């Protein structure tokens, strides 16, 4: 527990961990919000979520290698992934929308492996990164550092989430999406083209992941197998926050990021992943207990 002592002796490092954790968490929250969206609207748990992030990263890297600023990657990856998402919907996802959850898990799991391997073929297994050219803000005499690109990612995550929320609330299509989420059949009766709504929703989610991927490429590293991290984290966040609860998703995302970073520091990096998964199990158990209690009341 000597690591814990460091935190007590030099509280500035706690602050550093908190800041880092929250900045990471914002990206998790962004990806999780996309997952919550299609989960809520289409009833699909997208296991290929992280792979969409990875593809967004590669779009950014392609621009970067062609000599463009990686920041252009944020809109570019969103647009490209929107199209990819649309295509995925038209080829695979539409077949599984009204099916059993198990089918959608299997199908998207298959998609995730396919995308991983295709990316591996197309881009190679090399670890790549795009240099944003941004610097670092040093505070408190250099003990606390905040990298500017993480700050950009943090702000961008909020901007995208805000834009999405406004879109769902005020635009015609956004209202159609919400209507479909509430009752697809009724929406169809009232003239909503639910197929189009589904396609748009899935494409939107892909676009969000694409933007997140662009930020990942500038903040960390990109390789064909980074997907799982984001899929698991976003699944967890959605489970904690529930569907259709944007504020909850953001809070859970930031909280997870911070909790994970602290766990990595105190328990050692080897326990960081274990901590995340134990947390997932604990949350699932807790949730099911709570649900049981609710049912008893209903009965």
């Amino acid at each position, binding site marked *: 527990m000597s*690591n814990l002592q*460091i935190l007590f002796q*030099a509280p500035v*490092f706690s602050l*550093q*961990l908190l800041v*880092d954790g929250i900045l*990471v968490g914002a990206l998790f929250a962004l990806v999780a919000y996309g997952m919550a969206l299609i989960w809520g609207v289409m009833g699909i748990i997208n296991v290929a979520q992280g792979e969409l992030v990875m593809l967004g990263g590669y779009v950014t890297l392609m621009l970067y290698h062609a000599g463009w600023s990686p920041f252009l990657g944020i809109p570019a990856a969103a647009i490209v992934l929107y199209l990819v998402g649309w295509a995925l919907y038209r080829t695979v996802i539409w077949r599984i929308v009204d099916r059993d959850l198990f089918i959608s898990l299997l199908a998207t799991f298959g998609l995730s492996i396919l995308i991983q*391997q295709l990316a*591996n*073929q197309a881009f*190679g*297994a*090399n*670890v*790549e*990164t795009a*240099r944003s050219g941004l610097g*670092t803000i*040093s505070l408190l005499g*250099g*003990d606390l*550092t905040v*990298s500017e*690109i*993480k700050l950009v990612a943090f702000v961008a995550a909020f901007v995208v989430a805000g834009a999405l929320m406004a879109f769902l609330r005020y635009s015609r299509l956004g209202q159609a999406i919400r209507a479909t989420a509430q009752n697809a059949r009724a929406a169809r009766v009232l003239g909503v083209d639910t197929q189009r709504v589904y396609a748009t929703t899935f494409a939107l989610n892909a676009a969000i992941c694409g933007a997140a991927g662009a930020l990942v490429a500038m903040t*960390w*590293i990109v*390789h*064909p*197998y*980074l997907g*799982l*991290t984001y899929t698991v984290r976003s699944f967890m966040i959605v489970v904690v926050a529930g569907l259709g609860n944007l504020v909850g998703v953001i809070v859970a995302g930031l909280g997870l990021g911070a909790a994970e*970073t*602290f*766990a*990595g*520091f105190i328990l*050692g*990096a*080897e326990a*960081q*992943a274990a901590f995340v998964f134990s947390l997932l199990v604990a949350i699932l158990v807790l949730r099911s207990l709570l649900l049981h209690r609710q049912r008893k009341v209903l009965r």
Partner: protein
Amino acid sequence: MTVLLRHLAIGLGATVALASTWTGAVSAADDTIQLGAAVSITGKYSTNGKNTKDGYDLAVKVINDKGGLKVGDKAYKLEVVYYDDESTPARAAQLTERLISQDGVDFMLGPYGSGLTVAVAPITEKFKVPMVEANGAARELFTQGYQYIFAVLSTSDYYLRDAIKLAAEQAEAAGKDPSELSVAIAIENDPFSLDVRDGVIEDAEKYGMQVVIDDKLPPELNDMSATLTKVKALKPDVLVVSAHEKGGPLAIRQMQEMRVDVPMLALTHCDSAKLAEQMGEAAEYALCASQWDASLSYEDEYFGSAADYAKLFEETYDYAPPYQAAESSAGVLVYADALQRAGSLEPEAVRDALAATDMMTFYGPVDFDETGKNTKKPMVLYQIQDGQYKVVAPTQWASTKLVHPMPTWEEREGS
């Protein structure tokens, strides 16, 4: 669930069938010696798998172009039968069994990487088929009493021992006692990196250094900020990071962002991660372990000098050979040498000839001890200077002087 399993089984069967058609009909002409290899063409090791395959292929081509091998009184050509192990250990083991028992291959070359080699070794052992491997450096391969495995490369615990030695030398030169130094270790939790860690810890203990951080990073490593915050708090004299191709870029990027200063940063897999190219100035002064370098003065009859090898490789494949390719080529050379000395195609005779190997290659000297590892070849340590990988250790091969301690980020960006 059973239905699902059956579908999976059918699917797997189909994949195996496809894989075998890809390899082509395996029917050896009787003047060809077949070497078998399961390498990673797809999956996460596909880059290194390709380096391995290119290394094997180049050596086979050069040997055949020079008239092949004379075993006994007969001249033979070499040929490698490949399968794609998809970077998974189970698949590599399965394909090795297939190569030996169905395709009738009597001599095996290793797959890429320690994890896969560990999976394959029990199979070659079971069938008593010799395997020369060039990319499995895990120590556990040589502690099991295996009789049929021979490794041309240095084992992984040697990768960064030299960094500790170098740090001790620098401390002594500065009039300090090496035991005052502290070491931080951040490695991926896999057999290779754990060995690297063991080697570092053993040597650190030998000098009486204190290991202040000992973090094992998860395989899906994407963020090192927790570990680096600890480094910042404890200010070690040496930071060792080993996490295949991910470790270097991630460590350097985040150290720059978080303004983490250490006097010495020692890494593995820098050249295959293209660290200097990708990270630019941020990568300067990092130390990197390497099995081999084209500037070394080793020579052999097939390739000439190390530099000649590098030239030929680049002409053939359009990229400079990483050490993974060089050691793979060396593995084939070792086979060629042993087959000729054995004078027979009996696996047992070839095994005994391999065990007696004592030769020089462009890759370095090869001499196996009784466990099958090559004890003669030293590791090389680079330092990135002006975007180039300069050899700084071991001192007798060093072409460049070590810059120590590393300048702080403030000093670097101030200038």
